[in-house]
């Protein structure tokens, strides 16, 4: 029975709950059993509270038995990336500097999931402050890829990805600044969605790079991703960059198909991917063509500059966003003879090497005399990427690329070479720079059995079309 429960998507789970074939408590028990087996090997979670989850489940069963209508996430076990503020769990961003910090407020997305009766099991591991592509930069633990425990799950939302991929949670929430949802989704064989910038409120997301960060779901299927996205999207008055418009309905649109939709394969991003990924991408393109989409090839050379621009803009914003971790108000405080010494000691001890590297990079890029050469130039490149996308979308409706140039790499393989690590995000970064929606969908496996993901990109606010495309790929490759 338990194994069967873990197979259900959200819709199936709801059918069974409604039919009283299963209780919410039984669902939580099934996930608890799976966590007890998997978690010691995978290490996806930083904190778990299954007792709280079970009492929420009990309460939901009672409400259901009284005839109440429950929310759209009722009974759904959720894993939250540990950079989302929660009053019920510490929120650390996998950093020593926030060890044990319990926020006095919930992130908007956390409240929205709770409003829909989602059940949070725990908080998941990530690269410290979401800075990384492997989840190896966590100050607390290394999360393993469920498909090969010697390999990384990708990052920075590696904990949420591994939790969903190993069926320890039905839904994961992550944040995506340069690919941090999509790349781990690809490396663990699940769906990862980064909405249009402003679609989901960032309130309560520990900022890495404010102009790039977006929160999104990691799920086993496109349908589940659509449902979770519908629950968390929408204007939030507490986020001034939040879009004012009503968010699109995704679930109902999934089956509308892609007949006549023009999909461009971005050849210059395909060329840099490994052969098995190239082959998988062509299979995905085939699936789209079978469903009636019009496939063409397009080269967008400007996207290659995205990586360099990103590694100026993101560290620049991060250097400022992470200034507040100074030991004065919360988190770690190391003693010092003066305030300045205390701050220096705290930050020296509290931040890991990758975070320090990016703070240094960003501080440098914003410094007097370098600002124009770095920050201003990077912003210009960012506009260049934006207009390159605009031009591309004059001739196609969606773009198709690999999500990552490689499948999951070995733990430690890229740790010594940060630039090589940064390259993991070359296909995902352009959408963060442009603010466009993007989605990674599973597309088979390489000869070693490691999952491959392909990425669909669309113009701003084109989530509906994006999900129709993703659903067609998923159906076609099934």
């Amino acid at each position, binding site marked *: 029975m338990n194994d069967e429960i873990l197979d259900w998507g959200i819709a199936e789970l709801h059918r069974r709950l409604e039919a009283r074939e299963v209780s919410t408590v039984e669902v939580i028990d099934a996930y608890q059993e799976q966590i007890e087996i998997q978690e010691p090997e995978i290490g996806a979670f930083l904190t778990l509270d299954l007792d709280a989850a079970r009492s929420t489940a009990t309460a939901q069963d009672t409400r259901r038995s009284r005839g109440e209508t429950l929310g759209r996430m009722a009974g759904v076990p959720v894993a939250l990336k540990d950079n989302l503020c929660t009053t019920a769990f510490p929120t650390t*961003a996998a950093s020593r500097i926030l060890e044990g910090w319990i926020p*006095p*407020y919930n992130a908007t997305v956390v409240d929205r999931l709770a409003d829909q009766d989602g059940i949070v099991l725990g908080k998941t591991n990530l690269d410290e402050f979401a800075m990384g592509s492997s989840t190896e930069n966590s100050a607390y633990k290394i999360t393993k890829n469920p498909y090969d425990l010697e390999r990384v799950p990708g990052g920075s939302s590696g904990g949420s990805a591994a939790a969903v991929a190993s069926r320890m949670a039905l839904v994961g929430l992550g944040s995506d600044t340069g690919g941090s949802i999509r790349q781990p989704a690809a490396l663990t064989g699940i769906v990862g969605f980064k909405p249009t910038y402003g679609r989901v409120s960032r309130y309560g997301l*520990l900022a890495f790079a404010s102009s790039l960060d977006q929160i999104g779901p990691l799920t086993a299927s496109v349908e589940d991703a659509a449902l979770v996205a519908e629950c968390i999207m929408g204007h939030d008055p507490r*986020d*001034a960059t939040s879009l004012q418009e009503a968010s699109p309905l995704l679930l109902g649109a999934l089956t509308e198909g892609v007949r006549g939709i023009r999909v461009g394969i971005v050849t210059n991003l395909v060329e840099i991917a490994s052969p098995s990924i190239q082959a998988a991408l062509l299979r995905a393109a085939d699936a789209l063509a079978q469903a009636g989409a019009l496939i063409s090839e397009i080269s967008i050379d400007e996207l290659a500059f995205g990586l360099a621009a990103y590694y100026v803009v993101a560290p620049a914003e991060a250097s400022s966003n992470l200034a507040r971790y100074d030991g004065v*108000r919360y988190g770690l405080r190391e003693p010092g003879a003066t305030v300045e010494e205390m701050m220096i000691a705290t930050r020296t001890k509290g931040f890991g090497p990758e975070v320090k590297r990016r703070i240094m990079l960003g501080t440098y890029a*914003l410094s007097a005399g370098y600002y124009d050469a770095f920050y201003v130039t990077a912003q210009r490149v960012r506009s260049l990427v934006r207009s390159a996308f605009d031009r591309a979308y004059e001739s196609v409706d969606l773009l198709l690329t690999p999500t990552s140039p490689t499948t999951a790499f070995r733990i430690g393989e890229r740790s010594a070479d940060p630039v090589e690590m940064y390259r993991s995000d070359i296909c995902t970064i352009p959408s963060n720079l442009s603010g466009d929606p993007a989605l990674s969908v599973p597309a088979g496996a390489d000869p070693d059995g490691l999952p491959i993901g392909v990425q669909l990109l669309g113009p701003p606010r084109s989530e509906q079309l994006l999900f129709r495309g993703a659903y067609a790929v998923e159906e076609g490759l099934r």
Partner: protein
Amino acid sequence: MTQRATAGPAKGWEYVIGLEVHTELKTRSKLFCGCPNAFGEEPNTSICPVCLGLPGSLPVMNAQAVDFAIRVGLALNATVQRSQFHRKNYFYPDMPKDYQISQYDVPINANGYLELPSGRVIGIERAHLEEDTGKLVHRGGHGRIESAAYSLIDYNRSGVPLLEIVSAPDIRDPEEAKEYVTELRAILVAVGASDGRMEEGSLRVDANVSVRPIGEATFRTRVEIKNLNSLRSLVRALTFEGHRQVQLYENGEAMIQQTRFWDEERSLTGALRLKEEANDYRYFPEPDLPPVAPDVELIEERRTELPELPSARRGSIAMILPELSADLRETIIADACWPYFRSAVDAGITPARAAARCANELTALLPDIGVLAPERFVEVLAIEDRGDLGASQVKILLREAASDPTPVKELVTKLGFTARDEDAMKAMVEEVVIRFPDEWGRYLGGDEKVAGFLLGQVMRQHGRQISGAGARQALLALADEARSGAE
């Protein structure tokens, strides 16, 4: 530009002063969150995740702060423009995010000016929005962070909206600096943007000051004096600093660009830190806030709604009472007095009387009585203007009119002031006239001297509270009636 005799720091030298005035805007809530913008609360009670800069919190622009900034910009004849917030990055424990959200190269208001009562015009380079920091309280040592045993932080002030108004280096002596701040404060209060209370820190002044030989066109090395929190400190600090700088030049010593503080007790400025060591603030556009783009319609609406500003008030006074002394004029155009004066003059009260009552009785009374509706003030003055009340009665009546909502006319009766109305007065005079027919006849016959006797009888009958002028008026009216009736 009107010329004005300015006083230099020494013979042959002149001051070059520019002021940065930080004013707290009296919005209901803070600049980027919903916390009340209140003064004097218990420490760390007016706080939330946003103004504490907690991880994950985000700023949201307060529309009222933008509105106030626009009003000030218009009152300072500035260009109100689409503006952008920047982050000013530096570490300090009173600043929860370790960056301040401020405006940098595109402030909301640019290129204005302010005309002083002297007629001199001072340029306003910019007036931009920014958030205030928390407040540090140092315990032990000398009350400075370096020597304190420990420090406490109150974040109630964190995120309070500030408007920083930066003048051009057009101010030429300490008294003029005082005049500038006084005028600016009057404008801020008049447009409703600030309560102008320097002692509560809602107006804080930093001064940039240098000196140069008169006739020299270029500026010399300047010194910044931080946090001058009273007009007295401002004048004394600038004077001290001017003398210090001239002395340095005359002794052939080097002037260093630096930040100094004013020590009120020891009456001197001391070095705070060398400008060379100043932070590189690493300004960059605040990604959490879209640009503030006030629409043209709103700006024009605010322009038409601007209240009469001090300079305009001065203009009206000059028309109505050209002889009025500058002191009285400044008292009357102050916000506390002006609505009363304006209503009185508009109601046809003798301007000189309105001015005198505003400057004397009203300014003396207002601190005690708090509020008095201008209409009631006008009613009292109208009674006085008719000659029905004496000055001491007016003073009492004003005080009563503020605390007792009874209509002013009834109040007069209630107080036993026999001003009453003209009919009552006429009746009283008539009573006397009937009792003294001979004297009345002589008076009608043209013997003016009898008037004194007759009026004296009225007073004897009804007491000294009766207005002599009113009684005389009634006597004249009766005589007129008697004469016209006889024809």
